């Protein structure tokens, strides 16, 4: 139905740069997630599509139309708010029907479409209730219904699930994904929750300090982080990031020495490795990268997170759920060397292992 394009878009609030020179194209029917910590500019980016904020510079397009100067009402986008933003003085029916009323849809069609949408989100028995008489999950559905009642060109969702409890959130996540697939509407979804991003998105744009750090499929973001920020932000528990120096194919830091770090020389380097790519071995085994004492052991159920004391920092690894180890016990560690990432601490960019290939 519609693609959305950001062309060198910058948004400043006074001196604060909320969004810095963003270029981004969201494809037709795509589910794009803007992911990042709070204050990273993701919500502002989305609000500029809705017309709730005006870009300081740059252009925003829906399809081929430049929308910078288009009033929100003519943009034909729908938005689901974190707080749901249901009109407390209107019934469920009137809440869902508000966009139709504004557009002067004739009464019989108005009724028909509200009912149709309400059935879809299983609210058809509650049409006469007021928002305050609904549960959190039901309110969420009303907000959703209000957004889909007119099949907009673009859906905007601002952390729509974050006010729900954990169980409901998982359920609504699945429903959202299914709904988007069914409706085939271009969707921009803002969240700080990486699980939501990974599970929902076709593509994820990871934002930090107003800049898109990386744009890619969830798999790319996870398996191939391009920057130090993305590496540290994605994954739970997060990637181990060990500062050190890379020289002639060897990465060295206090207590750790890894060979095979390419042929690059980086004086201030950071080695990144995910907990699941670090494996426990005996302290005397061959091919281990280091030996370190156990700092703490946390059983999560499906596996065990082991923190090792490594120099001044902790190295986290994911071990089998049956792992048994005592604090201060020394264990050997083997790092999957093909799963390591090297970053330049100054530019915060990935350094490829084989730059001369």
């Amino acid at each position, binding site marked *: 139905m519609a693609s959305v394009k950001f062309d060198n878009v910058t948004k400043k609030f006074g001196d604060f740069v909320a969004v810095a020179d963003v270029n981004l194209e969201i494809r037709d029917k795509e589910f794009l997630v803007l992911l990042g910590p709070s204050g990273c500019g993701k919500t502002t980016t989305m609000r500029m599509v809705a017309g709730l904020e005006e870009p300081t510079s740059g252009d925003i397009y829906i399809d081929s139309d430049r*929308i910078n100067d*288009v*009033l929100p009402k003519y943009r*034909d986008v729908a938005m689901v708010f974190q707080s749901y933003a249901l009109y407390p003085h209107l019934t469920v029916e009137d809440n869902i029907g508000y966009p139709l009323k504004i557009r002067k849809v004739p009464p019989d069609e108005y009724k028909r479409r509200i009912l149709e949408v309400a059935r879809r989100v299983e609210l058809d028995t509650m049409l006469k209730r007021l928002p305050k008489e609904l549960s959190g999950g039901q309110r969420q559905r009303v907000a959703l219904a209000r957004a889909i009642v007119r*099949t907009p*060109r673009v859906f905007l969702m601002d952390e729509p699930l974050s006010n729900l409890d954990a169980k409901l959130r998982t359920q609504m996540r699945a429903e959202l994904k299914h709904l988007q697939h069914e409706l085939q509407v271009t969707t921009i979804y803002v969240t700080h929750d990486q699980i939501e991003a990974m599970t929902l998105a076709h593509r994820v744009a990871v934002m930090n300090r107003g800049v898109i750090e990386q744009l890619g499929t969830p798999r790319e973001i996870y398996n191939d982080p391009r920057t130090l920020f993305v590496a540290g932000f994605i994954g739970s528990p997060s990637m181990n990031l060990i500062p050190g120096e890379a020289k002639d194919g060897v990465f060295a830091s206090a207590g750790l020495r890894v060979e095979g770090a390419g042929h690059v020389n980086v004086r201030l380097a950071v080695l990144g490795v995910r907990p699941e790519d670090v494996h426990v071995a005996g302290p005397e085994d061959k091919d281990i990268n280091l030996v370190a004492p156990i700092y703490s052991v946390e059983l999560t159920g499906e596996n065990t997170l082991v923190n090792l004391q490594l120099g001044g920092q902790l190295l986290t690894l994911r071990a089998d759920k049956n792992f048994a180890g005592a604090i201060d016990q020394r264990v050997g560690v083997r790092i999957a060397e093909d799963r390591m990432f090297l970053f330049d601490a100054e530019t915060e960019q990935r350094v490829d292992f084989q730059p001369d290939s």
Partner: protein
Amino acid sequence: MLKKGKSAALFEIGGGFEHWAERRLRYLMLAPAVVILLALTIFPSLYMFYAAVHRISPNPELPWQFVGTANFARLFSDGQFHVALRNTAVFTIIAVSLEFALGLGLALLLDKYIRRLTFLKTVLMIPMMLPPIAVAITWKLIYEPQFGVLNEIMYRLGLPTQAWAGDVDLAMLSIIVADVWQWTPFIFLLMLAGLASLPVEPYEAAELDGASSWRQFWDLTIPFLKPVIAIALLLRVMDALRLFDLVFILTGGGPADRTKVLSLYIYQVAYRFADPGYAAAISLFVLFVTLILSTWFMKRMRLVE
């Protein structure tokens, strides 16, 4: 669901006026109030300044005579003005202090017991809502020397009866009592609201730390109430400075100018002595003082933003 074919029309920028108005809504919505208030405050202030440098004859046929700063110079030598200034200060300080002492004291004492008695609370608030003129005649009736209730009580108690508002020494006190009667509920109500918004945890922590209730009052209650106290103080002082109605009815400024306050004096200068030029000069002085006072106070207390 909007038809696809309509999408071109959807991206029209919007009708000319609609777009124009939306873009400027922030100014359009503010403008009427600002224009009205400018007309009603800035214009009179300037006009008053203009009047203050003239001698204005009661005869409207005669032209205004430019006198420069003469009217302002009179402020220094006019003994009546100094009396009015002093009376206003005395009234403001004593009345507002009493209202605070009583209002805050009552609020602290009764907070726990009256919190749910909404109806009673509203009844206690009645005096400050009443027309000042009604309050004035009511107290005039009570102070009445011959058949007033107050003298009846004095008589029953075996005390000498008084002329009250007509007595040189008691006139100001009579005005203050009536004002305290009317405005103590204001302080009481605001303090109750302040107390109701106090958080519980700091008190529990203080209790565990072994702080006495006296210490808790000074270390917790007063700091927490400070914003409310500031607002109440500002509003009461500004109100006390403009006192007019009570004096006009109860004493007319007498006896022997003991209750002549600034507002009343300006009124008298302008209308009884028919000297609007000089009245304008005094008004400017009062305006200046209240603006300085309220601005300083509002900035200090960060009442705005």
